């Protein structure tokens, strides 16, 4: 559910928990279109300063397990060296937050994820998929590992005991207000750990929604 000023998004409210990331600054509001994502609704973030911020975050923190799913149309060019964060939650810097993002490696856009361990960032970079255009990203944080897969391809993982804060959640950038995403977003989901069957259903649903083969 969204609240608009014209076609600019003031609030994008979570349909399950009612959490409401918002943007009170006119020039930093992303833009809604009913048809901008595979003919379905999408919210476009310009990569310069657009984001939506919730002042609290109720999702799994500390080392608690969670998954982050993102259905986005990633628009940053491969030549853009800045990491672009689609959704982040936790506290402060990358050492105490979790996020799903896009980076560039070897001149190719790649999916990227982080769940900091309290001292430093712990990050994984997908190497299977060119992360340009529409994709489904799945970040699995188990409490002892972080794994990322894009479009259901083989995941890349590393050991990680996260130490995630409870301060806030931002769509379109880091919690500190940087690394703004250049994307059109259709859906973000933060869940408890899914079973293999549940994850398969989620992936199929999001790929169908996004028109992703």
């Amino acid at each position, binding site marked *: 559910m969204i609240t608009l000023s014209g076609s*600019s998004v003031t609030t994008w409210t979570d349909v399950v928990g009612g959490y409401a990331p918002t943007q*009170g600054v*006119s*020039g930093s509001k992303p833009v809604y279109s009913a048809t901008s994502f595979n003919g379905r609704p999408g919210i476009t973030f*310009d990569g310069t*300063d657009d984001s939506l911020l919730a002042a609290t975050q109720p999702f799994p923190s500390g080392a608690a397990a969670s998954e982050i799913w993102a259905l986005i149309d990633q628009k940053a060019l491969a030549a853009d060296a800045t990491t672009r964060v689609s959704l982040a939650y936790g506290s402060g810097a*990358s050492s105490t937050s979790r996020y799903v993002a896009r980076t560039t490696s070897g001149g190719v856009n790649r999916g990227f994820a982080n769940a900091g361990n309290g001292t430093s*960032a712990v990050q994984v970079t997908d190497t299977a998929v060119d992360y340009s255009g529409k994709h489904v990203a799945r970040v699995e944080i188990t409490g002892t590992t972080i794994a990322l897969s894009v479009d259901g391809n083989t995941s890349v993982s590393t050991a990680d005991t996260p130490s995630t804060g409870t301060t806030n959640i931002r769509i379109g950038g880091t919690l500190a207000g940087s690394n*703004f995403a250049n994307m059109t977003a259709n859906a973000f989901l933060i869940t408890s750990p899914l079973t293999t069957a549940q994850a398969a259903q989620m992936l199929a649903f999001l790929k169908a929604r996004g028109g992703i083969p």
Partner: protein
Amino acid sequence: MSIVVLFPAGKSASADAYLAFCNANNPDTTPGAIWYLPDRVDAHGQRVVGFLGPLGEWNGGDWPEPQGGAAARADGVLSTTVDWPNEEV
């Protein structure tokens, strides 16, 4: 904003004046809306204010620059990118 105005470090007063101009002409009808945060500074010490004008893409499309806008931002330069501080890699 897909376009911003960057004001050199010594032109903070000009940035404030431009922001005041944009707030006075803000097309956003949300109650209490402000055009842009007053304390946004890029990694090079330049004040950053969202551009209120064509291709700024506020509200999903071109928005005409209010009369007097060009003069109000004369001390700044238009930019399509910002190097924000504290960017993570």
